[in-house]
């Protein structure tokens, strides 16, 4: 295949106009010593028809969530994606555009981001939101650096119930920035407040907490905020935006910066990406935020319009003094989130949250009734819960897989302290029948 429209004849004409004898002459500045002598060892070229067949074959080697019933969550969730989201995202004016540097011809992207920022603020109870970051984990890492800059302190405390991958990402970022990362233990599946009180000190820039946490359990944000604020540390909360249709907004119970994984808002699980990280903060941290921010203004005729703003924080102006090296946001994923929240609306989002909550509790109850599990703890949970399986988790999942069910996640690798830990997620997409089938297959596995 080729996507080059100029013909050989046209290329010859263009070379003649330039005054060059051949295309090779145009590469004369590249020293012979570094020119590639052979052809690249790359297969192809495939016709569109061959490519389509090849890609279908490759995709066919994976099992997908339409064919199998999924009870895996752990940071990527199989929520329903309204048809409107997929349809509108495929408009080329959105997906083939660049970052909106020329606002006069980018009002579509800019207004959508402004609406996105408003919705994120409204869900999280915060004053300002940026235009999105790479994912929930990097948003948490960026929030940690932001807190260090804002407090002029150098240490952050992460609760052990935060997603292990997020903690790993925070650990990588902090290590290279010369910040200290400490881990606060858990009790009954949530932050151990006594241990937090003991650990927190004059160097603590922020406490990082996730709620609902990796186990699906809801943290006591309010009490953690009190501990953090008493020490003049900031509280960074990472949350599931769908849960916020039911739970108190973190901003209303003491959070200073709120981040989270926005995948659940209309983005497919897609083998881990692309997703979007959202970030919102109290007004006083506006100018410390990383990434793009859109603001409202007027044009020369007084008409309302939107622009990228507060750019003096950013790398293309401030270079090494920028608040972060972030250049792009995840605009198309943020647009998916905006369309999702618009079409679900006030009632729809609440319904998705309530259905997930009720079905997860139904699954919990039914699985416990099998007598094959014990609870890991009894903290309240949202759409995901940790059980201790009495048998071999790997064998259980193998048995389920043969019956077209993708079972929960074995957590032993991340939390050896819960031996046999089995993390089960239930979204609104799982029917009672799906859950009953899971339960009966779990029984038949033993």
């Amino acid at each position, binding site marked *: 295949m080729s996507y080059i429209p100029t013909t050989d004849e046209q290329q010859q004409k263009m070379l003649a106009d330039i005054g060059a004898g051949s295309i090779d002459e145009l590469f004369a500045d590249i020293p012979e010593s570094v020119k590639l002598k052979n*052809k690249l060892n790359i297969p192809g070229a495939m016709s569109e028809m061959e490519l389509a067949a090849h890609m279908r074959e490759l995709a066919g080697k994976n099992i997908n969530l339409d064919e199998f019933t999924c009870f895996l969550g*752990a940071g990527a969730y199989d929520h329903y994606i309204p048809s409107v989201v997929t349809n509108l995202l495929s408009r080329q004016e959105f997906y083939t555009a*660049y970052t909106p540097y020329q606002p006069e011809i980018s009002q579509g992207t800019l207004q959508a981001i402004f609406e996105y920022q408003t919705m994120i603020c409204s869900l999280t109870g915060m004053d300002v939101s940026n235009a999105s970051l790479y994912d929930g984990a990097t948003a948490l890492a960026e929030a940690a650096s932001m807190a260090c800059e804002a407090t002029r302190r150098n240490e952050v405390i992460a609760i052990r119930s935060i997603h292990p991958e997020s903690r790993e990402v925070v650990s*990588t970022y902090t290590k290279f920035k010369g910040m200290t990362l400490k881990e606060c233990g858990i009790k009954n599946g949530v932050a151990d407040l006594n241990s937090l009180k003991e650990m927190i000190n004059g160097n603590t820039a922020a406490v990082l907490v996730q709620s609902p946490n990796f186990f699906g359990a809801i943290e006591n944000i309010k009490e953690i905020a009190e501990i953090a604020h008493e020490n003049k540390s900031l509280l960074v909360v990472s949350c599931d935006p769908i849960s916020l249709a039911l739970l108190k907004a973190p901003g209303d119970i003491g959070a200073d910066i709120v981040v989270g994984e926005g995948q659940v808002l209309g983005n497919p699980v897609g083998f881990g990406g692309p997703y979007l990280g959202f970030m919102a903060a109290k007004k006083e941290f506006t100018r410390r935020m990383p990434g793009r921010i859109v603001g409202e203004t007027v044009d020369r005729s007084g008409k309302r319009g939107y622009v990228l703003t507060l750019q003096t924080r950013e790398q293309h102006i401030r270079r090494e003094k920028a608040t972060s090296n972030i250049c*792009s946001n995840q605009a198309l994923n943020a647009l998916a989130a905006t369309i999702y929240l618009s079409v679900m609306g*006030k009632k729809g989002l609440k319904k998705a949250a309530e259905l997930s909550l009720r079905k997860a509790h139904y699954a919990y109850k039914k699985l416990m009734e099998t007598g094959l599990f014990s609870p890991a703890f009894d903290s309240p949970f949202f759409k995901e819960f940790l059980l201790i399986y009495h048998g071999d988790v790997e064998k259980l999942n193998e048995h389920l897989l043969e019956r077209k069910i993708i079972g929960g996640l074995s957590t032993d690798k991340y939390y050896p302290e819960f031996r046999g830990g089995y993390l089960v997620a239930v979204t609104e997409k799982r029917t009672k029948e799906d859950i009953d089938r899971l339960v009966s297959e779990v029984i038949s596995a033993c």
Partner: protein
Amino acid sequence: MLKKEENLIFELSVPGRSTNLLPECDVDETEISEMIPLSFLREGEIDLPELGEVDVVRHFTHLSQKNYGVDSGFYPLGSCTMKYNPKINEEVSKLDGFMKVHPYQPEKTVQGCLELLYKTDKFLSEITGMDRFSLQPAAGAHGEMAGLMIIKAYHEHNGDYKRTKIIVPDSAHGTNPASAAAVGFNVVEVKSNDRGGIDIDALKDLMDDEIAGLMLTNPNTLGLFDENIDIIAQIVHEAGGLLYYDGANANAIIGISRPGDMGFDVVHLNLHKTFSTPHGGGGPGSGPVGVKRQLVPFLPKPVVEYDNGRYYFDNDRPLSIGKIKSFYGNFLVVVKAYAYILSLGAEGLKKVSEAAVLNANYIKEKLKKYFHLPYDRTCMHEVVFSGQWQKEYGVSTLDIAKRLLDFGYHPPTIYFPLIVREAFMVEPTETESKETLDEFINTMIEIANEAEKETEKLHNAPLNTPVQRLDEAKAARSPVLKYERR
């Protein structure tokens, strides 16, 4: 484009209106407060709009009509490589077997995804002359960050803790110094010579045992290939530093020259530039980072390995810098780049760079009589002009850019690189036809004439767009960053 003002989605909201997308509850309708204590529950409702499906569809369709994409027309935005994004790549990335796969599924159920990641790594390694790639970075700047972490980890592993400085040319993208600072390096700037390349003497003066490495874009942001690359590599390596290749301009050299053969130790590529994945209005991108053999142990983990007919994740990598993102990167973006590489093959990829370079030189030669060309030599895939002749008539490069909007073009990158006064950087890419280039050239000549004779037209531009020039100072001075109900 749609000129009529579109209300904010919140202003369209009608109390009580809703969609009905989800089924009724089929399990026990337990009281919520029996599952979650009241103290955790939100009082009152969330503030989201109440709309019907058609309201939402019209609203976002109207917004799309206020946007300009590559499919809308010519997009010669320098350094951004706004090439055409093939539709087949969009289609295959939406296959259920890619889109509806959970990242924690058992390895044996995701062999297709792993094979795709593994082979993309091999392709990118071959294209750049490196030994191994990680596809984890989500964007170019993220790839830079990962690459610089690898450089730091490598020196520290060798017990070399003194190397705290990164050299960046004065022509570099802003992300280079920002990424270096983000991983705790101090930034040292090296100036350019009068041919637009690195000033070799200045570089020599900067080298000492505190230099961790040099970041270089080649061709650089002036669109010029640094002919001294051999010497530069030698100077940096002899002083114990490493060479970092910013792949922003890789569209000029695919199949022609490889960073690995130029002496670079670390490379990042932008799949959303060189490998035609769409920019999405500012993301998602993908910025894979590739390294030479001695740096492979430091790559982000996991990496995909192949053994005995089976692909698997290798997490057992004690020297790895760690994870820099959840899961494995922007997988669905990688799918599109993989499809692009296969559709072109070796010959096709080389032709991409040849046509990209030819198109840029064609524009350069046709316009250099009308706009000042600060470096009059053969350029690579992009050309940097200066609007300084037009400035004499009181017309700025910004005015020229805004006037282009009226003619239906996306303007070039403006005021970058910083070392050229009134700069504008034109990158046509290989996917534009001679007819498109000729039309653009004629338009630019017309604008050059207007600059001389009808300056008002440029000062008032644009007039044919959904909004006119916006007051950016007002936006920054008194920020309105969300909708407040009035």
